[in-house]
């Protein structure tokens, strides 16, 4: 037996002092070669130049919640623009007294998303919760019952609009993308061609042009007197756009599946639908979680393009605030706030997907 006890005795020495501790770390990571030493010093200087001024601008000389006049004679940041305008930035043109409605709709949405993360909750009841949630959210947003004043979709704006466009964009685009990916692999030439043409065409045009088409061209083809809601049209454009990208990512996942998986499913007598639903897609979609997240993140950020068809997402409401003469000139502060807001959302999505991946890991 070769256990440490019976092994021939030997001394276990400590490594040299230059290899451990703070000194060792510094030596190993920052000053291990002459050019790394130079880079380290350069960056130290750069940080010294940038960080302290930023801190004093952002935190020391700044004001946080004052009327705009108070901002005129300070050196630092005028964060006041955010709290003073927060309800317009977040809720846009939603009527003042009714802003609790989009607020609680967003909370319901976040709650449902959070609840859905746990794979133990993936049962039929989850679908029912979502259905109820969507109906409640719709009612809260539109109103017209229980004494709630009707708010037309044209007034839906700010963060709820951003959330709605991106969330439903993703949720509807994903299944559509999966269908397109399956269609592209189909043996039936008509279906295959249709899917290839669709995917390549959509990927060949920018989202802006799709939005334009949905808002300007599309209504021209409708019979007179029939109008389709503008928000809905933008929503559909975003869905169609995102789906084409999802399709290509999912196709990559399908191609990564070993042939043996198809053969094993075939040899059990499973039909095409069963094979795809039970064997192939669960594995392929798990593989493509990271690249899908990339597409969903850019879809989330791309929703800000709806400004060009005169919808007021959270970026546009911020811009409107900045065009108010009282607050012009504080764009840095406002955009930093927006950047943080977007970052929080994107980071949450990204960590959500990591958790999802982890919970689907089956050891291999």
């Amino acid at each position, binding site marked *: 037996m070769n256990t440490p006890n019976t092994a021939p005795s030997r001394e276990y020495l400590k490594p040299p002092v230059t290899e451990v501790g703070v000194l060792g770390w510094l030596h190993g990571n920052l000053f291990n070669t002459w050019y790394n030493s130079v880079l380290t010093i350069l960056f130290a200087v750069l940080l010294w130049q940038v960080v302290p001024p930023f801190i004093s601008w952002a935190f020391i000389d700044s004001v946080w919640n004052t009327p705009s006049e108070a901002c005129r004679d300070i050196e630092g940041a005028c964060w006041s623009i955010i709290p003073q305008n927060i309800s317009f930035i977040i809720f846009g043109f939603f009527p003042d007294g009714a802003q609790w409605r989009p607020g609680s709709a967003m909370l319901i949405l976040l709650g449902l998303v959070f609840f859905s993360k746990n794979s133990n909750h993936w049962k039929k009841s989850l679908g029912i919760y979502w259905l109820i949630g969507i109906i409640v959210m719709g009612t809260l947003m539109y109103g017209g019952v229980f004494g709630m004043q009707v708010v037309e979709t044209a007034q839906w704006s700010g963060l709820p609009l951003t959330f709605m466009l991106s969330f439903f964009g993703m949720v509807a685009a994903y299944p559509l993308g999966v269908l397109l990916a399956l269609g592209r692999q189909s043996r039936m030439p008509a279906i295959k061609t249709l899917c290839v043409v669709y995917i390549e065409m959509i990927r060949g045009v920018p989202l802006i042009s799709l939005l334009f088409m949905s808002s300007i061209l599309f209504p021209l083809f409708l019979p007179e007197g029939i109008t389709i809601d503008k928000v809905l049209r933008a929503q559909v454009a975003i869905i169609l756009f995102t789906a084409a990208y999802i399709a290509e990512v999912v196709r990559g996942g399908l191609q990564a599946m070993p042939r043996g998986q198809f053969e*094993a499913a075939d040899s059990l007598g499973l039909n095409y639908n069963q094979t795809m639903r039970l064997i192939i897609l669960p594995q392929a979609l798990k593989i493509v979680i990271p690249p899908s997240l990339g597409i969903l993140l850019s879809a989330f950020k791309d929703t800000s393009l709806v400004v060009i068809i005169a919808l007021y997402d959270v970026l546009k409401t911020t811009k409107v605030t900045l065009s108010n003469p009282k607050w012009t000139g504080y764009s840095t502060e406002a955009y930093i706030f927006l950047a943080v807001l977007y970052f929080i959302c994107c980071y949450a999505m990204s960590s959500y997907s990591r958790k999802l991946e982890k919970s689907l890991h089956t050891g291999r």
Partner: protein
Amino acid sequence: MNETEKQTAENADRAPIIEVNSMHKWYGDFHVLSDINLKVKLGERIVICGPSGSGKSTLIRCINRLEEHQRGQIIVNGTELTNDIKNIEKVRAEVGMVFQHFNLFPHLTILENLTLGPIWVRKTPKKDAEEMAMMYLEKVHIAEQALKFPGQLSGGQQQRVAIARSLCMKPEVMLFDEPTSALDPEMIKEVLDVMIDLAEEGMTMLVVTHEMGFAKSVADRVMFMDEGQVVEENNPHDFFDNPQNERTKLFLSQIL
């Protein structure tokens, strides 16, 4: 007449469970299988051997239509394999297949791997399917692993699960495509033991393998294939001790 002889005599009267009549297959221009004729009776154990590239795997993959043949006829349990997808699915449900690389479904537990076919193809209630799955897992001596995932098992264990998965479909015939070729030597025996048990219970088996010991002890018939043709076919005793064809002799001298 003892019990086994009687059974053999009974089986001989029945129509063959698998019938392959002058079947040809091409990959593009390449003629992989040429004029294959094969009749398998219920309960028969057939070992197919031959050098790599001789078409032996392709032959058994044609029997459950993982590969398509271009000429001739393949009839399994009275159903002819054509392009009719319903017939193909029917045959596949009757014919179990064990692959060289196991091909378990890595995202499902062992138990779910076993119950998938019965639940979705045979429409067995989940509870019954699970009971049956546990029974077959006992049979391949692996019941304690039921809730693990395939990735957590050794190769030999995975292959035994794969055999149990096929058995859960209550197949008439089992096809084995080099079931031990991807295994470490010490795991080969545990898989072969399961296969021997199965043979002793009277399962109809077509086995592509290089395990000549298995062929000697279990097979009713050994087929030797080379270059897409059946070169020699005989009972194991004569096949190993008295091969007729030169190619068979050469092959046997190389592997024995």
